[in-house]
């Protein structure tokens, strides 16, 4: 029993480390399913983190903070969508620009918020159930965003596989030309999918600055947006596998922190490399199976669409 008790706080930190990745990657999964490759996740996340933090410290309302964080991510996504879908700009280049712009904008706008402390997001204490040993704190004493992230996994799964709109989105992602030919709204679908990606990346960022490390620091996403992008490939564009992937990475992050805390003789910088190295490893393991990637990746991913070419 004692062992289990020690395990509980570790699992709790795994959950907090995984949640931002899960949000951001889930949003990108939907975006990519529609055929749009938005490499600007990092930029949308960091903007979401700042916006959520700023609004929460100013108004005292974390809910408002989360909402504005998500909207800020969507705001950047809108720029991306306009440039790539309306102006037909190169998606890779625009995604990179989005990240550079987001990091720059948040650093500039966030100068007044450095060093301010914030009470972390409140846990929703579900009475009675949360006092069940071990399972109670894990399942019934999390903050609202953690529950939301799980709900979103199911929602996205359901949306993609069981709704008409989800079918349209997938069709647009597989072949925009065919989708357009049978009268599906290619551009509108992609706009909405990209905006959804922005909302979710913003929420992931909000979770970082409101709960994971309740503060604002320049560049605080530290590559999580890029890891989220890798997770989408890892998941082969399936929400269920994405959940597993996000938690695997949360686990690696926490493992690295605990190993540092436990005083392993490995230098801290080497431990900090772990999530990045793991990303590469995971990417290689999945991508080496070319056929599997080809069968699962949206066929028109990253390709521009112009109806009157």
């Amino acid at each position: 029993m004692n062992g289990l008790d020690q395990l509980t706080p570790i699992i709790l930190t795994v959950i907090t480390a995984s949640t931002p990745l899960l949000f951001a990657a889930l949003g990108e999964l939907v975006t990519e399913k529609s055929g749009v490759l938005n490499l600007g996740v990092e930029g949308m996340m960091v903007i979401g983190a700042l916006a959520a933090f700023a609004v929460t410290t100013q108004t005292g309302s974390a809910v408002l903070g989360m909402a504005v964080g998500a909207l800020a991510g969507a705001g950047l996504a809108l720029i991306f969508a306009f440039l790539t879908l309306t102006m037909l700009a190169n998606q890779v280049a625009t995604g990179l620009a989005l990240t550079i712009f987001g990091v720059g904008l948040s650093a500039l706008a966030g100068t007044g918020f450095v060093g301010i402390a914030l009470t972390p997001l409140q846990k929703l204490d579900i009475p009675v159930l949360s006092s069940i040993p071990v399972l109670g704190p894990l399942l019934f004493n999390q903050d609202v965003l953690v529950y939301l992230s799980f709900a979103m996994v199911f929602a996205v799964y359901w949306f993609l596989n069981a709704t008409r709109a989800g079918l349209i989105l997938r069709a647009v992602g597989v072949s925009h030309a065919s989708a357009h030919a049978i009268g599906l709204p290619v551009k509108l679908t992609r706009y909405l999918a990209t905006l959804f990606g922005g909302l979710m990346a913003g929420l992931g960022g909000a979770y970082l600055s409101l709960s994971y490390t309740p503060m604002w620091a320049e560049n605080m996403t530290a590559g999580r947006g890029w890891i989220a992008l890798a997770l989408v490939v890892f998941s082969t564009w399936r929400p269920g596998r994405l959940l597993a992937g996000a938690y695997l990475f949360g686990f690696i992050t926490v493992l690295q922190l605990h190993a540092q805390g436990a005083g392993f003789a490995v230098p801290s910088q080497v431990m900090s490399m772990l999530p990045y190295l793991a990303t590469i490893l995971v990417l290689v393991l999945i991508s080496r199976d070319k056929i599997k990637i080809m069968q699962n990746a949206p066929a028109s991913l990253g390709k521009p669409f112009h109806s009157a070419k």
Partner: protein
Amino acid sequence: MIRLEHRGQHSQTMLYLSPLLAVVLTLIFGTIVFAILGKDPLVALYTFFVMPLTNLHGVSELLVKATPLVLIGIGLSIGFRANVWNIGAEGQLTIGAIFGGGLAIYFHDSDSLFLLPGMIVAGIIGGMVWAAIPALLRTRFNANEILTSLMLSYVAVLFLSYLVHGPWRDPGGYNFPETRLFPDAGTLPTLISGTRVHLGGVFALLVVFSGWIILSKAVIGLQLRVVGLAPAAARFAGYNENKLIWFSLLLSGGLAGLAGLSEVSGTIGQLIPTISPGYGFTAIIVAFLGRLHPVGVLLSGLVLALTYLGGEMAQIEIGTPAAVTGLFQGALLFFLLACDVLTNYRLRIGATRAERGGVA
């Protein structure tokens, strides 16, 4: 309703006009940003974009900062032409600095004439080694080079941090996280006395020239362009795609390594935890703004170098945060990408001819 109408063929005029248009739009954007920050926009713009160039010191610093941007930008632009997206130049720069700088630290009491050439070679090799990893993972395991090269950047920067905090820390340096100073024999000579302009600038010019030769005269340059413009044609012609991926990544990695070495050996003089203010990422903008053409890269390298200088100048003179630089750089790339649409499309406002019922 704004519509895009295909031009039917590339507009050469727009291809060259678009960067200028983007710069103008960035200036307008900058005016708005400064106004929001509560600064007089005219004073701020003058401080940011003109003041750094009003004296020799400023101009020389512009050359110092443009050097790594141009070196890396040339390499990236050649890869981008073939749709090989090396965005980990920051990491390759760092490893180049470690390889080359390591030699200077190991032979810190040397006055050999061979030290500097050895460091340069080591720097290039370092960058190539780091770029070879994404190349291998892409060609052998199909792993996306965008993500792997970027992840390796984080690893490289952490590795440098480990070295300067640990084994390579200057024994007589009061525990500061920095290595000992490179010996004179391991320092790139200064070209203009009283400034920091060093031999790296000459490397950059040589690379611009070689890049131009490769793209316009060499067979591999043609192949790279064909792969980027018409991948199917390249396959029919039997081009070896893997070879082009290797070539692009090794070339851009080697040049980033050279940039890193010239930074630590020419500008900084030792290894410290942060040796680059994001040159590897900014060089992506340099490549696009320069139209993926070597001469263009040279010019756009100077423009982007000015954003660094201007950011520093504005920070000192009018107290704007250093982050303004990153914001302007990002905005510049946005505007450029938006303007680039006009090379292939016309903007049309209103309904199409068919919708109006007119006869074309």
